[in-house]
């Protein structure tokens, strides 16, 4: 075996370890979100004479946010497929589409927060709203960091090309992005749908 193949094997092994480490991180993140969900469920009826979920939530708004995030999961998948095929140009294209969808989602979320605060439903008003802003805000913050990650990875694909470490980072970012979509399933099922009933 030549030195080059040994080095490549070492690198592959190291990258696989990182992927496992990232998976462990995602599971701990899932536990954080689960506890924020538990907090929300306990506090969701405590509106302290402030606005209730029925007055604040708009299901149409949530439906569009859901569509944007789900679509962005699909486009990230397309980027992953383009990466497997070794087509750097297409990877960048799909990443930019994913970024646009993610930023659209964030813009809608900020618009919603702004509207709620304008209606007198800020995070300081009641236990329900504190729990709501903590949970949905934590998810939004994750999406913002994911978007930053997409910007960084777009740069890396353009500058470094689809090298082994870049591919590994892209796969890990994909895990993160798909994971955030899973958390969003919980958010619309636990917060928004029961909230407007």
């Amino acid at each position: 075996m030549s030195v080059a193949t040994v080095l490549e094997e070492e690198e592959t092994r190291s990258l696989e370890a990182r992927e496992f480490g990232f998976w462990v991180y995602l599971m701990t993140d899932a536990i954080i979100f689960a506890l924020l969900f538990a907090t929300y469920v306990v506090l969701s009826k405590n509106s302290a004479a402030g606005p209730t979920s029925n007055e604040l939530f708009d299901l149409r708004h949530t439906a569009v946010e859901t569509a944007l995030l789900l679509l962005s999961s699909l486009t990230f998948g397309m980027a992953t497929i383009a990466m497997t095929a070794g087509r750097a140009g297409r990877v960048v294209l799909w990443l930019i589409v994913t970024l646009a969808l993610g930023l659209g989602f964030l813009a809608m979320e900020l618009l919603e927060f702004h509207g709620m605060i304008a209606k007198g439903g800020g995070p300081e008003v009641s236990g329900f709203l504190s729990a709501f802003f903590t949970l949905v805000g934590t998810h939004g913050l994750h999406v913002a960091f994911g978007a930053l990650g997409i910007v960084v990875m777009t740069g890396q694909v353009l500058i470094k090309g689809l090298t082994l470490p870049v591919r590994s980072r892209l796969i890990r970012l994909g895990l993160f992005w798909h994971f955030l979509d899973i958390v969003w399933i919980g958010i619309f099922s636990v917060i928004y749908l029961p909230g407007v009933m």
Partner: protein
Amino acid sequence: MNHTAERSVATYLTGFVLAIILTAIPFAIVWGGLVTGPAVYAVIAAAALMQVVVHLVFFLHLNLRSTPAENLFFLGFAAVLIVIMVGGSLWIMTDLHHRMM
């Protein structure tokens, strides 16, 4: 994790269509008021759990053949922790709520 072989456009599209269906069902039920009472929560919960599985299988490519055992182990471990902590918290808090009434 060497499961690049299973990554295809068809896989993602299947997952996407299933996810849309499983999202549309609870939204339609709440929107249209088709079902009322506790049954609504049951439908929302069932659709959500199924959609989580769809995402894990079609987007995160989890399966029993090529996913390393450690990853599945950690997923199971996280699931157990979540059930204990969330289930336990809700149990205690609802019990407390009833006693305070």
